[in-house]
């Protein structure tokens, strides 16, 4: 009933092309943003910021990054965590070696470094495809971590190879408390998510999708393959790099290269598969699902059983339920949670009088 678009007419091209063509969606988005930027900072506790919201946002950003490459441009990649590591370590080095550099500039430069590395490892994509490309990006994952551990310069000769985030100050605003870190993360993620959404709707995004769907056909209709693929690698790695910088600066503070291991790459890949390949919304859904569901299960188990269950059994049962839920959602909707959401919305448009 509420979700009706009757009476909403598009009278200009601009109205036709906007991201949210239905008024209710626009209102919903505005309410969501208002909630995220105003209500949550007023209401949530430190636990929510530091354990739930900040990591969920950062992983969402990394998932958007991988989704650009794998979901939109169709290049399977297992190197997302490696590019996050580049972003984190590059940002750290810019902050360390250039006196007085603003954090946001360092972060963007870190992202650009990740993009350059991404281009380098994207080169094989011109010759190989599919699973073979996944293996080539796997090389990126291992090579990057190896370099970061091998050459102590990257961690400023720290004996254990870890980097420690410096104080973040933006135009005199020092980001110290969890709320401030949350707001900074949220602002960066919101901005980049909007950019990604728009990018996907432009010429660039359509070129990616053409390459994804059939690269020979795309080439025939005049899409330069090399440029398009490398562009996807660069932009994807940029997103991952910024996510890595946020991971180090607003989430953990002290990061070892090992934190960006293959497990994390797989996790980000699972996020986009569960959330929905080739959607920005799905990246958020997937990140929330993969990072928060295990925590939620753990909390539920503690609330339900307390110490009654042997802890080893409880931990294993949680894992099993988590795995079962992944399989359940993949069977119910192989296109991911974002597709479920879309189906729900379409049903809602007709409700209560489906014809």
């Amino acid at each position: 009933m509420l979700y009706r678009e009757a009476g909403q007419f598009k009278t200009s091209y601009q109205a036709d092309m906007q991201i949210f063509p239905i008024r209710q969606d626009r209102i919903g988005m505005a309410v969501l943003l208002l909630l995220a930027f105003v209500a949550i900072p007023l209401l949530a506790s430190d636990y929510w910021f530091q354990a739930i919201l900040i990591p969920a946002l950062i992983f969402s950003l990394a998932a958007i990054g991988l989704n650009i490459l794998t979901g939109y441009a169709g290049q399977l990649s297992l190197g997302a965590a490696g590019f996050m590591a580049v972003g984190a370590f590059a940002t750290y080095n810019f902050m360390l070696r250039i006196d007085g550099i603003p954090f946001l500039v360092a972060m963007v430069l870190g992202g650009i470094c990740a993009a350059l590395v991404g281009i380098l490892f994207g080169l094989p994509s011109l010759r190989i495809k599919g699973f073979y490309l996944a293996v080539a990006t796997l090389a990126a994952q291992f090579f990057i971590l190896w370099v970061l551990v091998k050459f102590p310069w990257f961690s400023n000769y720290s004996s254990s190879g870890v980097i420690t985030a410096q104080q973040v100050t933006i135009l005199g605003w020092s980001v110290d408390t969890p709320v401030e870190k949350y707001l900074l993360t949220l602002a960066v993620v919101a901005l980049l998510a909007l950019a990604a959404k728009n990018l996907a709707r432009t010429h660039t995004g359509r070129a990616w999708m053409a390459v994804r769907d059939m690269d020979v056909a795309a080439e025939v209709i005049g899409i330069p393959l090399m440029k398009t693929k490398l562009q996807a690698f660069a932009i994807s790695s940029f997103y991952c790099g910024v996510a890595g910088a946020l991971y180090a600066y607003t989430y953990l503070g002290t990061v070892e290269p090992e934190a960006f291991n293959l497990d994390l790459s797989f996790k980000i890949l699972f996020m986009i598969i569960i959330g929905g390949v080739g959607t920005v919304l799905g990246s958020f859904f997937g990140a929330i699902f993969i990072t928060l569901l295990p925590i939620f299960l753990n909390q539920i188990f503690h609330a339900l059983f307390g110490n009654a269950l042997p802890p080893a059994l409880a931990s294993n049962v949680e894992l099993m339920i988590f795995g079962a839920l992944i399989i359940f959602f993949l069977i119910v909707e192989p296109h991911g949670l974002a597709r479920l959401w879309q189906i729900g919305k379409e049903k809602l448009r007709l409700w209560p009088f489906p014809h």
Partner: protein
Amino acid sequence: MRADSKWKPTAVVAAAVAGLVGGLGQAVAADQYQYLGLPSYRVGAYAAGGSGVFGGWIDYMQLINERDGGVNGVKLVWEECETEYNNARGVECYERFKAKGNTFFSALSTGITYSVLERVAQDKIPLVSIGYGRSDAADGRVFPWVFPLVTHYWSQASAMINFIGQKLGGMDKLQGKKIALLYHDSAYGKEPHEVLDRLAKKWGFTVEKIAVAHPGNEQQSQWLQIRQSRPDFVILWGWGVMNPTALSTAKRTGYPIDKIIGVWWAGAEEDVVPVGDAAKGYIAAGFNAAGEDFPVIQEIKKHVYAKGKGNLDPKRVGSVYYNRGVVHGIIYVEAVRLAQEHFKKKGQPVTGEELRWALEHIKFDPARLKALGAEGFLPEMQTSCMDHEGAGVVKFQQWDGKKWQMITDWIVPDRVLVRQLVEESAAKYAAEKGITPRDCSKES
């Protein structure tokens, strides 16, 4: 004067009331609790270590509750949170415990330790890493809230060289010797490089560093390299599946097993049992003893397992990881006790700040260790504002095919050199973060 005498009875009544309240307070104290959040891991690749250590720790706390009725009457309560050895999950557990008033955090994971390192000072929760974590945190001036207790990686590396020297019959015999370091290619495996380089320069031996990529279940080429270069000793700085693989590959390539010396994360039953007979004679470091022949372990069996309240399969009691967990428990309980006594809060729970003070004043002398039933179980130690490590000594044990046998007493590292490295590294951290080190002479 009149006023005084007039007040006297009142004072007596007040004293009586105070006594009564005090008495009541003590009666109430029986229901006081000291809460502890345990970020354990019982699933995943490292579950063997996680369940052993956290199981031993819990059993020790259970012992204190069952036998002594808690610490000065304060019952120990704990809650577990599964981390899966994953940093993000560990941070979530940390925050969850913090919201419940946690006062002590020890994750048995270097990654999680680093992940919360920046938070503990603000949250006033002491961060304890026993036998892992950040070595330079031993400089308590720069890291007031971080405690790499008992001994850390750099002390271990140095103690290993001293042990080799002892084996050869004198440190001067190290001259011209060749020692290979077979290490897990990660930040963990890089820990000993600098210490070993400096020691090599000092004693005139050479170090050949050979990396093994994670997870390390294929080491043919590394051991071929070892066979070619014929080092006098191999230091095995491994973790997980890398350890048994190294031992079986050594056997296949014909390298003498008793010339391989493992670190304390390569010296548990789980590392040698899969190898079978090939592991016989292998030597590994340890900062806690294995076995059941200690009063403290016997007490746990008597008061905890006999009552069916044990946390693990009784067969694991006395294993290396289990006993390491008991060491965690002993240190935690001792800190709670010290904090209660120093801050005159006997019978009351203590805060993180009070525990931090206590961790800086832990003293295990022979008498205290004997009272705890842990003579020879863990080293004598004494912490201070300057020194957050406390002991730094290492024992070496040899696998006889059935169990670990202690073959040395506590071996002392090159304290001057290690301390110098700690201070250099801590000073660099302080400079990077803009920390002004504490003045330890002003601390009580």
